[in-house]
């Protein structure tokens, strides 16, 4: 297996972007034409991620694909709806079901009012997360979570090499044998806010955006 495979097909180049809030996305180039709708990304010895292919097409004899965590429906517009005196679970559940996504089923807090305007499901989730003072994200198996950002210490950290650390921009680049890091943890005393796993002809790197 290569450093990264999409549905078992080796990835030639591309990146996976995992922010601390919202869905993760990937833009990858492979040599095979047809790869279906469901996407399984696997880095041997590291991450195994499930998402959906939202677009793909031929480019210079290769296939470029765009993948998003979850079912890929978070841009779907949902109608307006109002709630009064409800647990936060209710409006979140309605959005998730409306977009045919999956979620953990738990969220903190109650709302005396909630006014959902017509718009993209992802934007509606962001508005709720802001009100509840938490973040929402799509995990590596495609499940949506609402949780506070407490940055626990990263566990089971494999060996890595720090290739560069731009303290002004707060971006660290790691040389890695496989992709393993996720955001929302603390690594080397840095709060990892977002991670970009990159792959090209020279190998793989992980960019860590921290605070």
């Amino acid at each position, binding site marked *: 297996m290569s450093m990264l495979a999409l549905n078992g097909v080796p990835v030639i180049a591309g990146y996976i972007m995992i922010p601390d809030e919202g869905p993760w996305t990937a833009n990858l180039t492979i040599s095979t034409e047809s790869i279906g709708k469901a996407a399984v990304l696997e880095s041997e010895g590291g991450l195994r991620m499930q998402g959906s292919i939202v677009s793909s097409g031929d480019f210079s004899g290769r296939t470029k694909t765009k993948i998003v965590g979850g079912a890929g429906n978070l841009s779907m517009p949902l109608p307006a709806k109002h709630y009064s005196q409800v647990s936060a679970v209710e409006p979140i559940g309605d959005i998730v079901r409306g977009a045919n996504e999956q979620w953990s089923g738990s969220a903190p807090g109650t709302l005396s*009012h909630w*006014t959902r305007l017509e718009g*993209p499901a*992802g934007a509606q989730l962001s508005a709720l997360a802001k009100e509840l003072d938490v973040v929402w994200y799509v995990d590596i198996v495609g499940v949506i979570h609402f949780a506070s950002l407490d940055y626990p210490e990263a566990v089971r950290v494999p060996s890595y090499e720090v290739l560069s650390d731009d303290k002004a921009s707060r971006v660290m680049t790691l040389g890695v044998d496989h992709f393993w890091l996720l955001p929302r943890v603390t690594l080397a005393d840095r709060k990892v806010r977002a991670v970009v796993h990159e792959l090209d002809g020279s190998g793989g790197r992980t960019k860590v955006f921290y605070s």
Partner: protein
Amino acid sequence: MTLGQQLADIVRKMIYHVDYYATYAAKVVQQRADGSLDLIFDHPRIPAMQRVAIRYPFPGASLKVAAGARVLVSFEDGSPAKPYAFAWQSPGLEEVQIGGSRPIARQSDTVVTPVPAGTMLTLQAVGSIPVNIGQAQVMPGTPMQLMVTIGPSLTGSIITGSGVAKA
């Protein structure tokens, strides 16, 4: 999806929250016992709402309004969790209170006021025609004095007047 559609998607997501800083026209479906309002909106992007609080221009005020009254609604701090109704169009006003629990009356409104026992009332006919008050008749130019003995309530209408409301 075209580049333009992708860009429009991104912009829609980025500016989604901006709409909570606007003001929207609504119609009252009903006013609940706690004074809050159930509303439907002219704008199709705004859902029907229940239990929306009214914000008043000064403290201690309250309103009773009829179904069909029209009002503007906004969101405090641009928060979807904090809608409030605050500015009205006629018609639909039924009662205003400013401090305390007694309503303010408008000209021609019927008013009821309690009169403690022992109060001396002076009744005077306005104009040239006698006025019948219960069994008594008040002649023009001849005020009639009545001693209240059992503390009734008087019902009448505001004809004219001005003054300062006080709690």
